[in-house]
């Protein structure tokens, strides 16, 4: 699949700009610039080299790099989520775990089946699978980078202590992955949270804006989830069809090189366009549409979480009010109730204030990201269709002109 590798630079360089492609309006200013300059894939883990350039005084140097693994990213994300101070912000969603299992499995199967196919077929398939592996690798790098950039772009989160440690501390953060017990705890916490979420969501909000956002986000999130899973399925079928076409092309090539009869010439001719057409389209759809949907699935979940936190705070506030009334009525523990109510009130108001802006930003980001990706998708599809058209026309021309 030289073709795939030749085209590699095209979407690779886009991929490099990928993270910024998903979230367009990141104000990357000189005070803090973060990126992943390198990544190494070892047997079952990926090591990311996080590179920072900053003029902020908090850092010892202006430019430095550290090596981080996926678990450390998760630790950072979780620390944000658990921090009450950040309850009023949309926490950038955590990057998905690097998953090379499928790709590795395919490479293994290829190795096992080596005897049953010709040398050309084998090398071709190997190149394809390697390209696939590379693509997944680049995607995971991009996802991790987006996360860091979002944090760096957020006016409040960028100042977080843990974030600075993450960026600067050049030794292992000793963040071990969660053990079984902790994972179970997490699971139960999530169950409780979603049950609570339903309860909280049921409470009608006084503020129209938030009430509208709540309904909107709920529906939107579900539909993005649906669209994301359907797009995955569609892309899988497309990939299967593309794989078949590749096999057809290589069999035709084998038939074509057996001898120099006319029929063989035709076979050779037709195998060329076939190889190029389908694989590329499948790859592009995957990048643009599916990744976009997946990302906004996570973002909309983060937005929902924000609303939940606010809703929770509201319920707490209302409960605190009721408690205060009761205390005043009974004239017992009034001071306690008052302070508790004030705390709740402050918390609620703080969240509400920032939440509103966050949600508006979310909308802007989303619209911009969709625009960029849809435009790029259309342009890529057009480019490929036109290229294929040319190739096919020249093939048909040669075939028809022959004799």
């Amino acid at each position, binding site marked *: 699949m030289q073709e795939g590798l030749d085209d590699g630079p095209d979407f690779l360089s886009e991929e490099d700009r990928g993270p910024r492609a998903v979230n367009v309006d990141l104000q990357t200013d000189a005070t803090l610039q973060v990126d992943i300059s390198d990544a190494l894939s070892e047997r079952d883990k990926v090591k990311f080299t996080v590179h920072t350039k900053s003029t902020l005084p908090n850092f010892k140097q202006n430019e430095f790099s550290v090596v981080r693994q996926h678990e450390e990213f998760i630790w950072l994300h979780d620390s944000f989520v658990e921090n009450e101070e950040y309850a009023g912000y949309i926490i950038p969603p955590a990057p998905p775990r690097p998953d090379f299992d499928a790709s590795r499995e395919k490479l293994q199967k290829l190795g096992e089946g080596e005897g049953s196919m010709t040398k050309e077929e084998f090398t071709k398939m190997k190149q394809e699978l390697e390209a696939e592996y590379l693509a997944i690798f680049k995607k995971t790098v991009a996802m991790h980078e987006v996360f860091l950039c979002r944090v760096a772009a957020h006016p409040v989160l960028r100042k977080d202590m843990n974030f600075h440690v993450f960026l600067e501390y050049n030794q292992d953060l000793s963040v071990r992955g969660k053990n079984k017990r902790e994972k179970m705890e997490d699971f139960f916490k999530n169950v409780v949270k979603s049950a609570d979420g339903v309860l909280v969501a049921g409470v009608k909000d006084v503020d129209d804006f938030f009430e509208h956002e709540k309904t909107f986000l709920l529906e939107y999130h579900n539909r993005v989830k649906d669209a994301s899973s359907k797009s995955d399925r569609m892309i899988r079928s497309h990939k299967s*069809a593309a794989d078949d076409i590749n096999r*057809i092309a290589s069999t*035709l090539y084998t038939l074509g090189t057996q001898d120099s009869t006319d029929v063989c010439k035709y076979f050779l001719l037709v195998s060329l366009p076939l190889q190029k*057409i389908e694989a590329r389209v499948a790859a592009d759809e995957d990048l643009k549409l599916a990744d976009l949907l997946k990302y906004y699935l996570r973002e909309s979940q983060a937005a929902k979480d924000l609303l939940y936190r606010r809703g929770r705070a509201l319920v707490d506030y209302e409960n605190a009010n009721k408690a205060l009334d009761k205390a005043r009525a009974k004239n017992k523990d009034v001071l306690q109730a008052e302070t508790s109510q004030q705390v709740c009130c402050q918390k609620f108001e703080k969240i509400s204030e920032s939440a509103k802006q966050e949600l508006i930003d979310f909308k802007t980001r989303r619209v911009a990201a969709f625009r960029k990706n849809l435009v790029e998708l*259309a342009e890529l599809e057009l480019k490929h*269709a036109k290229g294929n058209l040319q190739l096919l026309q020249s093939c048909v021309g040669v075939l028809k002109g022959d004799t």
Partner: protein
Amino acid sequence: MAASSPRNPPPLPGADNQDPLSEMADEDSDEGEDIFVGNSNPVAESFQTDTANGEEPADLFSEEEISTTVNSSITTTKSNGVHSDNENDLFAEASVELSMENPSTIARENPTTTAKTSGAEFTPSRTQTQPKSIEQLEEDKDEDSFDMDVAVTNPEKIGDGMNAYIAYKVSTRTTLPMFKNRTFSVWRRFSDFLGLYEKLSVKHSLNGCIIPPPPEKSIVGMTKVKVGKEDSSSADFVETRRAALERYLQRVVCHPSLLQDPDVREFLERDELPRAVGTHTLSGAGFLKMINRASDAVSKMTVKISDSDAWFDNKLQEVESEELQLRKLHAVVESLVNHRKELCGNTAVFAKSMAMLGNSEDNTALSRALSQLAEVEDKMETLHQEQAASDFFILAELLADYIRLLGAVRGCFEQRMKTWQRWQEAQSTLQKKREVEAKLLWANKPDKLQQAKEEITEWEGKVTQYERDFDRISVTVRKEFLRFEKEKSKDFKSQIVKYLESLLQSQQRLVKFWEAFLPEAKAIG
């Protein structure tokens, strides 16, 4: 063999004439099918005899002369160059008809005939003459284009329940004078097509002809149709079968020898065909066929011709390896068709999902763009569906046809092998008889000796006959194979072009869809 072609004149009584020319003619009269291409064989010899008779070999009418001599060549050689008027009259009409066809081939025939004359010797140096005849044969193939079109259309379900069947309209359009009309159509059912194949097979396969095989029977497919399932799968099945039957018939009428067969004519013309027996899978004849085929399969593995002509071995190997590759290809194409159908379904589902997402999006421009995207995806679904159909009808069926045809080609080569076997066995029997004779001579038993001598003569005759058969079948097989290769090349080329054009069309439509969508996407925000 001669008995199978009723319209041929009876074989010459002096079949073992020393005259090689008459031998040639004799062989051809036995075959009968090779009238068109076989033209050139008797042509060569009789052309000489005709000119010897002072008939004008004028270009325009040379074919007439040629064809006149096809059937009357027997008589000319028999009567040593003197035309028998009766014979002439009998066939004059026939030959005139033939000559109407291809004035274009006449010019080509002339140079080739002279070449053939020199290569007429068929006996000892076989290898020497083969190359010349190949040249001849390759040029002859251009004659295969006559004005004849057949189409199979309008499948209609006749009857109900398990006795129902599909009747197809077989329409012919032709300028060939051997048919009563120029355009005509009849109704046939699938078993009629199979019956035609059986008849042609019986008559011609022993001569080394490549008989195009019909599409396969499908109990599952037909049962669905019979039961009356009105869904797309049974409609697809009927359409696939109709197209396959059409291609089958087209191949049959394209074959110059088969076209001459009265059974083919009857199939195309006759209003009511007697129901073909022995074509039903579960009949006695069906089982017998299966058993015969199985036993053939075992025997064919073991024989190898120690043939000085490596051409046949090479070609057989090529055929076998090609068949293997085509089978592999066919399997992948079928997988592709299935995946495309799957993709079709998934795209439709995805389109709906995107439409829903567009609906819930509160930014109007984005919402509109997403709905547009959903429409584009919907259109892609149609595109995928059509692409799947073209994958199937153009590619998969082409491959399936050629896998069957290559099987028929192999059968052809096997026939030659069998003929060779028979010849070899006859030779060994002759050898044994000679040994018996020698023993009897020594033992001096005069009465048994007489019998032994008679048997030797009998077997000598058989050996000569079988050797001639083998030579004849070798020529036919070679000719047929070259013709097949040419057809295959044409067929593949046209189908590949069709397929590429269908791909081209999809890409053009894709361009249209996305060009329409792009401004919508840019308008967001």
